[in-house]
């Protein structure tokens, strides 16, 4: 379970998160929604160590995450993707995923230089694991292409593959469907369900309401840096304050 307690983030005098608290139950798909500027990405950044909150506590499976660095948080099984497409552009898709497998390897400097049998066995094993991840997200046919040269939708899949390679137990996806076509979104939804089926808790920030409502078990709504509602999709759709927050785009909730 991810526990967020009284998380507060300020930029100068601007309060981006005014002390939010919520929980993400293990094994669920939970979404974080809200109008633009509600603080969704800020919350993600604060949870994953990219932003230092001015106050509050974050814990995953009983381990405190606040005050830790992103690479340390990844070591605790909490891995995120980014709102703007983020791959290793000059590397092949395969090498992108191999890089994502960093924590699964353990060969140190001296074994690498000596080229020990263990180091070579680990390299072979990592290569096989990378191919498994590529097959899982359906990118095997792009294996040797430069990630930066792929079409947008496939770059988002590479991003997802890199995150999955780090074997998260909690996966935070920041607008994974942004810029995707309808068909790509359907594939993404199926993929996220498959990821959750592999015993991974998924926490999503997303703007596409149809996708959110169809995918999530729990929805948390942020507005102006505060949690204004939390519940199953049906409750959220009917929640008066949520409708008010989305006024003018209330249709989007249908």
């Amino acid at each position, binding site marked *: 379970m991810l526990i967020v307690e009284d998380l507060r983030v300020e930029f100068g005098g601007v309060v981006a998160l005014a002390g939010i608290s919520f929980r993400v139950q293990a094994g669920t798909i939970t979404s974080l929604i809200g109008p633009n500027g509600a603080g969704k990405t800020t919350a993600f950044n604060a949870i*994953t160590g*990219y932003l230092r909150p001015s106050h509050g506590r974050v814990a995953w499976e009983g381990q405190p995450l606040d005050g830790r*660095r*992103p*690479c*340390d948080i*990844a*070591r605790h099984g909490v*891995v*995120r*993707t*980014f709102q703007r497409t*983020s*791959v*290793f*552009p*000059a*590397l*092949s898709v*395969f*090498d992108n995923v*191999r*890089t*994502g*497998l*960093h*924590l699964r*390897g353990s*060969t140190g*400097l001296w074994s*690498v*230089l000596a*080229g020990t049998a263990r*180091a070579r066995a*680990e*390299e072979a094993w*990592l*290569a096989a694991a990378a191919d498994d991840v590529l097959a899982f997200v359906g990118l095997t046919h792009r294996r*040797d292409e*430069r990630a*930066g040269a792929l079409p947008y939708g496939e770059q988002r899949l590479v*991003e997802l593959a*890199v*995150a999955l*390679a*780090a074997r998260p137990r909690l996966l935070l996806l920041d607008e994974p469907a942004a810029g995707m076509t309808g068909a790509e979104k359907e594939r993404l939804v199926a993929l996220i369900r498959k990821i959750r089926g592999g015993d991974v808790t998924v926490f999503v920030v997303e703007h596409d309401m149809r996708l959110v409502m169809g995918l999530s078990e729990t929805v948390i709504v942020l507005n102006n840096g505060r949690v204004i509602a939390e519940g199953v999709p049906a409750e959220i759709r009917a929640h008066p304050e949520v409708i008010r927050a989305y006024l003018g785009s209330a249709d989007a909730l249908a």
Partner: protein
Amino acid sequence: MIARAGLALGAVAAVTAPWWVANPYHLHVLIMAGVFTILALSLNLLLGYTGQLSLGHAAFFGIGAYTSALLSLPPLQWSFWLALPAAALASGLAGWGIGRLALKLRGAYFVLVTISFAGVISLVSINWMELTNGPLGLPGVPPPSLGPWTLRTKSAYWYLVLATAALAYFVCHRLVGSRIGRAFVALRENEPLAESVGIDGTRYLVLAAVISAAMAGVGGSLYAHYTRFVSPEVFLFSYTVTMVIMVIAGGQGTLAGPVVGALLFTALPEALREAMAWQWQMLAYGVILIVCVFFLPRGIVPAIVATTRRTDRAAGGPPEMRSGSVGLFKKRRGSDSRS
């Protein structure tokens, strides 16, 4: 395939060099090219793979040279074979300190800290008379000896430099193909993403700085025992600039790039010296460099790889060099990776 053939040809040429290089001065140029190969490989580890530019690399080279010279001169009179690793250690330690200081602040800050460091070390070498003999330098550094033999001749020293350069290349090759090398490249390509999958940025950048500095220190030690004389000139900024030119023109982020760059840009001034009057030499050097960077912005080696690939395809040969198959040119830098 062409890469393999080129490598084999280069190796044969290098090993037989003392036979076909008749002019001792040319052999001297070759030895300097070997020393610069080690330095360029070392700088490439930082600049090419982690993407951090060290403009104080001459400092690590100089620290290695001074350490090795001081340890092998009286009163200590250590053997070269102990002084060399000690030089690597001293430079590596300096690299660690600089890395710890600077790599919390990346990019431009790292450049500034490395420049300042080289400046400070150079001043120390000039002013600490008791230790370094100041601007007069340290003459009489003994040549390495191996059992009953002393490596006094140029051809013997060439083999020492060649073996060390090959070892440096091998170290880079092993690193680049490992998870450590992938972590370096990940930090160059996209640091936030690298951190998100558990790559500790500061730790790996410091590691790269230590290995790179230690390697430069080895180059410094070889230089000291070859010229038999060390002075504050080893800290000259022009050494650093030469290394940067070699890495960038050869092809940063490739294994063969710094080797090609070091050979070419050690030989070029010498060739120009024979070809034209001194007034024109630096001008020609500059023009050649500009042409090189203008037409081959990613470096000579990546350009050759791209061309042979195209030829391979046209000839119906192997369609793609898979990312694991040819270690020599494994990590190419994409044209858009700097944006």
